[in-house]
């Protein structure tokens, strides 16, 4: 029952993300547009390029969707309301998100097209950049909660949200999640205007619809992850817990979608250099800071 | 107990396939895949032994982590060699690397 409800919520969330994304891009609020666009995609022919590696080509969008949904599955919406509140939840979400990269590499290699392949391998390099910045701030979060269970992580923020105790980790994690969801200015694998769609370029029809849906799900799931790890999840006055979760998640998602629009796209080597020369040392400082504060405050 | 034996048989099969791969492939990266499979077989055995023989001894899980480190190191060393070789000779086919024979 809970699983079904959360699944529907995830779908609704992905839809909301689609509406907000269009609003942020074109400045027009059209609540029905994603539905129409989705139906139009389903009606169109789904082409398969010549000499495509059929297995990888077919598996990639599905794997992308599965990874995005799996990453949402371990995040609690309210006390006791999660599809699977694993004891290793904070680690599992990393594992699930790593398969986003595998899916994009498959989608890049599968169709036997230059732009797609460049986009796919670019995302692998992007993973090398953001991977550490996802894992290391989460280490600090788990340190404060003394648990990898996501509901425990939320409960540990009862007194003070993590965004206030570890602002550095929050900023790093935010940027890393934006790179993970390849939102601008980190949209290297799709790179409209430069790679002609990149990994998405060769997909059409139903497959493209799955691809887009997976991407929107991923954005919603990551916003939900930021809510759980840094913004106190369901904690909040007056309103019931799940309302707080949804409100915070949507707020984070819209900020993620709007914020990067005004920045120029980063180049691959700049992203890697900044992530490793600046980001990783800062993440270490964050872990050290959290450890010291935990020892001093308790 | 039957579960333990099944897990060990899986480990044995993976080890055999990995050994075949290491010996039969000519490309360095493919050889590394064989090594990874053999290490994977070791992982299966370790987890199975930990689970059924010593569920209270966490040095078993620790050993797992060390094997994982070994896997990562094997990748680094292998790709380091492959890069150097590719720069020098333009291929990583091991049949051509007779001068590396001791």
């Amino acid at each position, binding site marked *: 029952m809970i699983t079904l409800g959360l699944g529907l919520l995830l779908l609704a969330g992905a839809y909301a993300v689609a509406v907000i994304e269009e609003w942020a891009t074109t400045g027009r609020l059209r609540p029905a547009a994603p539905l129409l666009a989705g139906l139009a995609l389903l009606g169109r022919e789904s082409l398969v390029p010549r000499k495509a590696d059929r297995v990888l080509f077919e598996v990639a969008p599905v794997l992308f969707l599965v990874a995005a949904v799996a990453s949402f599955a371990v995040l609690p919406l309210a006390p006791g309301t999660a599809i699977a509140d694993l004891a290793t939840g904070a680690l599992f979400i990393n*594992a699930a998100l790593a398969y986003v990269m595998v899916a994009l590499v498959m989608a890049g290699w599968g169709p036997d097209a230059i732009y797609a392949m460049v986009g796919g391998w670019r995302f692998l390099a992007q993973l090398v950049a953001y991977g550490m910045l996802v894992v290391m701030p989460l280490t600090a979060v788990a340190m404060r909660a003394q*648990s990898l269970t996501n509901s425990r992580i939320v409960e540990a923020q009862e007194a003070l949200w993590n965004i206030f105790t570890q602002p550095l980790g929050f900023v790093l994690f935010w940027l890393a999640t934006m790179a993970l969801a390849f939102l601008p200015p980190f949209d290297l694998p799709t790179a409209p205007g430069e790679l002609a769609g990149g990994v998405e370029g060769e997909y059409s029809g139903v497959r493209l619809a799955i691809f887009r849906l997976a991407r929107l799900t991923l954005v919603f799931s990551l916003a939900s992850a930021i809510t759980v790890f840094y913004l106190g999840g369901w904690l909040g006055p007056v309103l019931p817990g799940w309302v707080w979760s949804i409100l915070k998640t949507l707020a984070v998602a819209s900020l993620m979608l709007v914020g990067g629009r005004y920045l120029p796209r980063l180049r691959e080597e700049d992203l890697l250099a900044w992530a490793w020369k600046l980001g990783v040392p800062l993440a270490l400082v964050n872990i050290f800071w959290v450890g010291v504060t935990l020892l001093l405050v308790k | 107990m039957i579960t333990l034996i099944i*897990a060990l048989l899986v480990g044995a099969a993976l080890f055999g396939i990995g050994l075949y791969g290491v010996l039969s492939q000519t*490309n360095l990266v493919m050889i590394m895949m064989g090594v990874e499979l053999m290490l994977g077989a070791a992982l299966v055995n370790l987890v199975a032994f930990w689970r059924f023989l010593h569920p209270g001894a966490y040095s078993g899980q*620790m050993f797992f982590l060390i094997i994982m480190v070994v896997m990562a190191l094997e990748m680094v060393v292998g790709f380091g060699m492959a890069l*150097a070789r590719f720069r020098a000779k333009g291929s990583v086919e091991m049949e051509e690397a007779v001068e590396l024979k001791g």
Partner: protein
Amino acid sequence: MILQTLAVAFFGLVAVWFSIVVFRTKSMVRSALALLGAMVALGLLFLALEAEFLGVLQLMMMATEMSVMAIFMVMFMMDPGGLGQMEMTHQKKLSLVAGIVGGLVAALLALLVDWGALVQAQNLDMPERQNYNLGMEIMGRSMLIFETAGVTILVSMIAGTLLAIVSRTQTTEGQE
């Protein structure tokens, strides 16, 4: 219990099938991704064996590792897509025999030992407790081993980076 046995057998079979595919397919990217499939099946097998942390760790590590393997394949191979049907193997008979013999010996050992006397009473910790105990093991008795592993990884990272960077003199020579 029976469910666990079935799950272990199923994921084991999947892992073995994928690992056979690794050496049967011509396309190198496919073969790297098939290896990833085998490793994912192993991760699920560990989950079935109730080693939650190890299973999830395996799933996380292998995704990156095998994708990196795929890109190195594409970099180093003449024909990574396997379109030209290039011959990639040697000493087939010897390796086949060695593989079968090695696997059979290991399998025989697994079958011949009397495990009944060794199998412990089932008092497995809950996953939460397992994580805690593993952490205590790492930070307690096995700390030195863990530190050594960490330092070794750091050294190999530095060495790998050094090997990967083309030295200035080499580049200029190459251009001339």
